[in-house]
């Protein structure tokens, strides 16, 4: 059974989650969390691939989609711009 994790959203993303400052999804890894967020909040889905960074317990997780999550993980979803 996957843990239920709380994801805190930076303000610029909250319009995509009906104003919620934090949301809960079931996920054991960052990759599962992003997938679950996209399913739960379709407006957010387009942003998830390139326009967010994930911070877990105070550290940015660059590309590690397999990083494990627990119910006590402090998770922030942060808006970012695409490089170019």
């Amino acid at each position, binding site marked *: 059974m996957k843990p239920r994790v709380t994801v*805190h959203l*930076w*303000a*610029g993303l909250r319009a995509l989650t009906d104003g919620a400052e934090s949301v809960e999804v079931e996920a054991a890894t960052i990759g599962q969390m992003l997938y679950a967020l996209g399913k739960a909040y379709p407006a957010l889905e387009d942003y998830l691939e*390139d*326009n*967010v*960074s994930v*911070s877990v317990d*105070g*550290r*940015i997780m660059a590309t590690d989609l397999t990083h494990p999550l627990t119910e006590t993980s402090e998770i*922030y979803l*942060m*808006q*970012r*711009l*695409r*490089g*170019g």
Partner: protein
Amino acid sequence: MQKLIWLSDLHYDAQALVQSHDPRVRLEAAVDLINAHHTDAVCCVVTGDMVETASDASYAALKAALSRLSVPVLPLTGNHDSHALLRAHLPLPDGAMPDFVQYAVALDGHVLIALDTLDEGKDSGLLCEARLSWLETALEAAGETPVSIFMHHQPVKLGLAMLDPDNLTNAEAFWQIVDRYPSVRNVFAGHVHRPTTTHRKGVTITTLPSVLYQAPPEHPPWDWTTFAPAREATRLGVVHLGPEQTTVHFEKICAYDHGGAP
């Protein structure tokens, strides 16, 4: 014409006052202003000195404060920052240079380049060979698209007696590259905690007051033994980038007494 917001020199601290100013109150006022009037900005660029003392606690507190911003934030390093800690705590655009806080962002008809001038352990700034080489590649990639460069340390002397010695120490190497690319329109810098404008060979260099505290003007003369922050209101920059011109509005964030020294 597109708009971006420019902040500089937050000197954020989780608990302490800095130069008798409250960095939490000042940043909160800036975020409130941006959220009230500038949600149409494409981003908010912060030209360095994100924190007063580089530590996990400082950056974690800053991250929480910036999480209220309704527009994406683009952080840069200043001499008070740490490459590694900033990268660990704050989001950077994809494609950022490894190990540094240096990146390019393609805006609508304009390229934003953020340079990392931090020379850890020193107040002055430096662009090492690797960072200069990256800059050259980024300017080449921009082609004829107008470019604005954001950086912490000013790459020119500004006639500020106490602040000029701590500028970008290898500014000559920076200009040797930039002078070859007429696409560069603007340089936006922080560090000096004063508003100035310089025009050099087709490039306008602008500096911004600090979100937290301001350096005194040149008159009456002062030195570091007599230094006391000027009792001036803090400001942010509202940068309007167009195909033919750039305009910067300097907008008051709050009254001096709001978070200022008694």
